[in-house]
Structures are given as C-alpha cells and as structure tokens.
C-alpha cells in the first residue's frame, strides 16, 4: 500500500471525518433551538413539564455537543494537514469566513454551553433560558459562516486570481455567492427537521412504553407541529436549490437525474443503474419527461446531459444518483409522516394510534441519513472540482505520502468508531431513563442551591448540591 493513491485517500479521510461531524451539528442546531423554546415556555408559563423536558434534553444535548465539538476541531486542522494546496489557494477568501465562524459563533456556543450544562442552580431561570437561546443562535451563526465557505467552493464569486491564488474583491459577493442562500436555508431547515423527528421519535417511544406520558404527549405535539410545516417547506426549498444548481452546476443536476443525452427531454428515473462506461442507464423505471417538468416547468424542456462534457469533467454519477434518491425518499417519508400525524392529531387519535407511534418511534434516524445523503449529492456532484471551475480536487492535496494518510485514516476510523458507539449507547440510555419527573421529591422546582445543573447526576444522587 506504499503507493496508495494519496488523492483518493485524502478524499476518503475527509469524507469520513466530515460525514461523522455533520451528524452532530444537524442535531445540535435544532436541539439547541428546541431547548431555548422549552426554556421560553417554562419561563413564560411556569409549567413544570417544560422545565423537566428541557433538563432531560440538555443531558442528551451535552453528549451530542461534545462529539460535535471534538470532531469539528479535527476539520479545522484537516484543511491544512490534508489539503494544504487548497488552503494556500483559497485561504485569502474562505479563511476569513472560518475566522468569523470561530469568533462570532464557536466562542458564543462553547462559553454559554457551560451555563446551560452546569449553571442551572447558579443563575436565574431567565438567564438559564437566555443561555440556551445564545447557544442556539451560536449554532445557527456557525452554520451561516461554514455554509458561506462551502457555497463559495460550489459557486465561487467576488474574487480574482492573482499570483496563482484567489484573492477577495467583494466580500458581499463572496459571502452571498449564488448558491449560498439556498444551501443555508436547506441545511438549517434540515437541522430543525432532523431534530423534530428525533423529538417525535422519543415522544412516541415514551407513549408506547406507557411512561412519562405528559412529557411524551408534549414532545409528540411539538414534533408534529414543527414537522408538518418544515417537511413540506423543505421540499420547496430543495426544489429552489435544485433550480439554482441547474443554473450554476448543470452537470451536477444531470448526474442527480442520471440524464445522459441533453438533446432529449429528461425523464425522472425512479430507479436506474447508471453505466458510466456506456453513458446510459440500465434497468430504468422512469416517469417520462418528469425531470424536464420539475426543472424547466415544460414538457419538452431540455437540460444539459452528462455526455455533453468529457468523462474527466463528470462527477461520479452512480454515487450522486443514488444519494439523491435516498434523500428524496426519506424527504417524502417525512412529509407523509408529518401530514398523517397532523391528521391524527386533528382527529384526536394521535396518542392512541399505536401503529403510527411505532413507525415514528423507529424513524428518529431519517433526518440524519437524509442530511448525509444530501451532502454526498452536493459534494460528490461538485467533482472533479474542489473549487468549482477553479481548482481540481487532485490539485488541492498536501505533499504527504499516501501511506501516512492511510495510517491516519485508519486511526480516525478506529477512534470515531469507538466514540460513536459509546455516544449512541449513552444517549440511548439517557433516553431510556427519561425525564426526571418526580419520585425524587423536591426535584420539581427551581431552587438555587438545591438542584443539580445536571439531572443525570441528580437522579443518581438526589439532593446533592451541585
């Protein structure tokens, strides 16, 4: 393996670490907003169940956030370790975007997280809730800046090339580059939707098990209420994002649709096996003219085909094609589940329809997989470019031997495998324990000096001062 392909290995390593990382922000962006909402309801109504729910989810948030932080630090250094030529080329432009992410978002999240996890008995309820809101705002700002940087790699704008590096010309054009608004909206909505399905899943699980009924119902109602708006909205945003991609990265869209011949209207392939050598699909099951209708709003509308560019300018079609279908299928499932849940709620049978509860209790993961699939579509679809039309992926790597990259890739796989397995196991156990509702006497109210900032610890040793 000494002559292992360093480009492929660097790509595999980045793909692995970034996919691992994105799982946690997809959850913590939404979960922090959910915590802030619960805190707001608690302060506003003074109702016990909101406070219990908030502190229950803070425990899960803590585990998830820790994994997000540590896997995020890795990424901020990996640009340099594995993609040094990319860093030298783009540093002047996307460096400051990451800099703003650190100063305007990371510090905010990380610092106020301390209060959210440990400050329950040290600060008044309003400040505790405010800390949750600040963390939520921080995670959102973080998404803003990192997506601006990513979008610039997809649709670069506002720069010039001087002495072989990209330099800034217009910062507003760099930040608000053509694909940024769509990508930001799509990802933020995805994070909230992902969280809605986790909350929904946990609520349904509690109802099925017949415990924590009051909290379970609240979660189910809030989850459905959110999902019934966000899931259809995501379809609309995704459609708009797709049209934007067609305008700026048409070959990516051709790969998503498995569309080879641009001189014919595009069918929508429900299933197909793209044959990249023969430049056609096998085993097609298609809706005739479907993609033309979606993308051009006309029956005979034409979109560029993959065959219009030489093979070395095409993305890996099979990967993009299938990832897109996975995302779509999960998206439609979420829409159906949310609408049907809302229908049951309206009929007044949401809490008793066990088959539905069983489905949503087992569908907590749908948002995560959809997010990952979506990122595979957009990142693989950008290939062979690292910065679209400016730098090829193969030209962006570091002068590091393939064997070294292989070794560290193995290290990451082992380390993340261990951390991820334990993380999921612990989160599942925290969910099993459920909110600490009564049974420990005196754990209900907000009494400084008595309650623990962390209910896990409180549950283990009741009455202990923090």
């Amino acid at each position, binding site marked *: 393996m000494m002559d292992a392909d360093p480009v492929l290995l660097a790509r595999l390593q980045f793909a692995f670490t970034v996919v691992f990382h994105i799982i946690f922000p997809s959850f913590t962006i939404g979960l922090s907003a959910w915590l802030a909402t619960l805190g707001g309801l608690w302060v506003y109504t003074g109702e016990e169940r909101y406070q219990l729910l908030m502190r229950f989810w803070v425990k899960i948030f803590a585990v998830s956030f820790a994994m997000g932080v540590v896997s995020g*630090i890795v990424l901020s250094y990996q640009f340099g370790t594995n993609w*040094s030529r990319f860093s*030298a080329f783009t540093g002047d432009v996307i460096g400051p975007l990451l800099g703003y992410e650190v*100063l305007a978002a990371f*510090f905010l999240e990380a610092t106020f997280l301390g209060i959210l996890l440990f400050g329950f008995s040290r600060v008044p309820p309003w400040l505790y809730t405010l800390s949750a809101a600040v963390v939520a705002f921080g995670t959102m700002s973080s998404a803003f800046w990192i997506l601006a940087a990513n979008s610039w790699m997809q649709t670069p704008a506002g720069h010039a090339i001087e002495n072989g590096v990209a330099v800034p010309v217009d910062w507003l054009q760099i930040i608000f580059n053509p694909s940024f608004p769509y990508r930001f909206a799509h990802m933020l909505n995805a994070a909230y939707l992902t969280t809605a399905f986790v909350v929904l899943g946990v609520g349904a699980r509690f109802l099925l098990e017949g415990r924590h009924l009051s909290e379970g119902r609240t979660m189910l109602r809030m989850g459905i209420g959110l999902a019934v708006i966000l899931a259809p909205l995501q379809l609309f945003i995704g459609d708009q994002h797709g049209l934007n991609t067609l305008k700026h990265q048409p070959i990516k869209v051709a790969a998503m649709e498995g569309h080879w011949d641009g001189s014919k209207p595009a069918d929508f392939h429900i299933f197909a096996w793209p044959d990249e050598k023969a430049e056609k699909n096998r085993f097609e099951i298609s809706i005739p003219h479907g993609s033309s209708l979606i993308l051009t709003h006309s029956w005979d509308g034409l979109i560029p085909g993959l065959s219009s560019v030489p093979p070395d300018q095409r993305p890996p079609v099979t990967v993009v094609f299938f990832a897109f279908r996975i995302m779509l299928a999960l998206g439609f499932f979420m829409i159906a589940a949310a609408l049907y849940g809302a229908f049951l709620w309206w009929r007044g049978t949401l809490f008793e329809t066990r088959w539905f509860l069983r489905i949503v209790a087992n569908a907590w993961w749908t948002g995560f997989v959809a997010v990952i699939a979506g990122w595979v579509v957009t990142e693989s679809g950008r290939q062979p470019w690292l910065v679209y039309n400016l730098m090829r992926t193969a030209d962006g790597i570091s002068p590091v031997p393939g064997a070294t990259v292989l070794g560290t890739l193995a290290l990451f796989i082992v380390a993340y495998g261990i951390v991820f397995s334990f993380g999921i196991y612990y989160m599942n156990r925290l969910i099993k324990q459920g909110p600490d509702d009564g049974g420990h006497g005196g754990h209900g109210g907000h009494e400084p000096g008595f309650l623990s900032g962390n209910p*896990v610890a409180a549950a283990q040793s009741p009455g202990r001062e923090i």
Partner: protein
Amino acid sequence: MGSMEMYLPLIWAALIGVAVAMYIILDGFDLGIGVLFPFNKSETERDQMMRTIAPFWDGNETWLILGGVGLFVAFPRAYAVIMPALYIPVIVMLVALVFRGVAFEFRTVSRSKTGWSFAFALGSTLAAFSQGVILGGLVQGIAVTNREFSGGHLDWATPFSFLCGIALVAGYALLGTTWLHMKTEGAVAARAQRQAKYWLIAVLVFMAAVSLYTPLTEPRIAARWFSLPNFYFLWPVPTITALVAFACWHWIERGREVPPFLASIALFMLGYIGLVISNYPYLVPPSLTIWDTSASPGSQVFMLIGTLFLLPMVIGYVIFVYWIFRGKVREGESYH
C-alpha cells in the same frame, strides 16, 4: 511594500500570538488536570478535579481553533506549510483531544468511571505532548522549497521535539496543580500543593534544557540572544524568569492560593516570549517570514474589523462565565 503590507502582518502575528497565549493558559490547566489524573486514584477526587474545569473546557479549546483558523486566515501560506510538515503530531493531537473531550460527558453517564478516566488522562497527556512536539518541530525548522513543504514526513521526530513534548506535559501539569490548589478544598487541594513543587522543578529543568539547546544548535538563535546590542535588551528575560520561579516556589510553600497559579502562567509567558524573540520574524523557521506567508491586505483588513469588535466581546463573556462559576469546588462535589 506599502505601509499596509508592512503593518498588517505584524498586527496579525500579534493577534495570533495572543490567541496561542490564551490557549496555552486556559487549556493548559485544563489539559494539566488530565495529566494529573493518574496521580489521584480516587474517582471521587477525580470528580472534584474535573468539576473545576467542566464548565470551561469547551470554551478553552475554542482558542485552539482560533489559533489554527487565525493562521489560515492571516497566513494561509504558512498554515499550508506547517500542517503537512507536522502532519502526524497534529493528527495525533486531534485524536487525543477527541478522546479527552468526550470523556467529560461519557465519564458521567457511564456506569464505571475508570475507563473514561483513563481515556481522559491519556488523551490529555498525549495532546499536551503532541503540542510540545509541534512547537519543537516548528522551532527546529521546516524544509521548504518553492513555498511548499519539501521535507520528509518524519522530519519532526527529533530528540529536541520530544524534549519539548515532555516539557509541555510538565508545564501543563504545573498549571493544573496550581489551578487545583486555587479551585478546590480538602485532600485534592493539599495533594496539588505537594505536587506543584515537583512539577515546578521539572518545568525549570526543561526550560533550561530548551533554552540551552536552541542557541547551541541554531546559530541564528544564538546570534539573536548573544550578539550586541541585543544582549543588553534581552538579559532581563532569563532574570525575570528566575525571579518568578523563585516567587512561585515561595508562594507554594506558604500555601498561598492565587499567586502560584499566576506565577506559573507568568513562567509560561516568559518561555513563550523567549521563543518569539528567538524566532521573530520567522513564522516558518528558517525560511518563511510573516510577510512571506501573509494573506492579501483585503483579507486581513476584513477579518481585523470583525476581530476588533468580536474579540473584546468574547473576552467579556468568557470572564462572565468564569465569574458565574467562581469559588472553590468542595470535597465530594462531582462532575455536574
């Protein structure tokens, strides 16, 4: 070179210097707690130790991201040389930080604490060691051709870089002991006071070793310190270091709580200033200066505007959170 091109890189070098200093101080005592874990076997005492840093560790580690990203922002061509050159220690540090970071939460949630205590101790120590190796690897110089790293992937592995690695472990342990003595009560505080003296001796030995080794092996560093008139201006640095070390020992003996911690920070800062004096104006010794690797003025100005506004805010709310969690952590107080 216009005056913007002259001064902006200097301002940025100073800002990144501050970020790295903040990181060393804040995450120093934080990693130091992990280095000290094996010397305190009781999990209850470890709970108390961890409790002193639990609300802060995430914020502390953010300064490391600021250091890395700051380098990427202001000196992308240095970032692009240093990271591949120090590839292995950087990745080892990151993986070590993963384990010690999740250990905070996992240790609380898991039934048996021993496993994650071990991960926390090993992760913290390895991260500290790697950071020392990175520092040593940078100071001893990086092979550069055409502004790109051109050395071998094990160039960093020298006796000097390993010496720096061990030195940093000892240094963080010293910060950890003085922090614990300040922030805890009971057996943990007493043990920290005892251990602080040993760590102080170790730190002084390593500081002396590094201070002798660098001018002996790097002629440019010898010239920097011992040529005239430099020597007239620079002799206070080692002198003050000796005085601070003496004061630190004295305060530890007397059982003072805050001064030893401040003195150990001062020792760190003096060592840090010494390294800056040795290597200025090189960002990638011995070939690339801060001006060679600087980002375009447009990038540096854009980020500077934000920094001047945001950094004071950051420092403000960091102080606020430290103030909220002020006071000592008592015996038997656990993680959360």
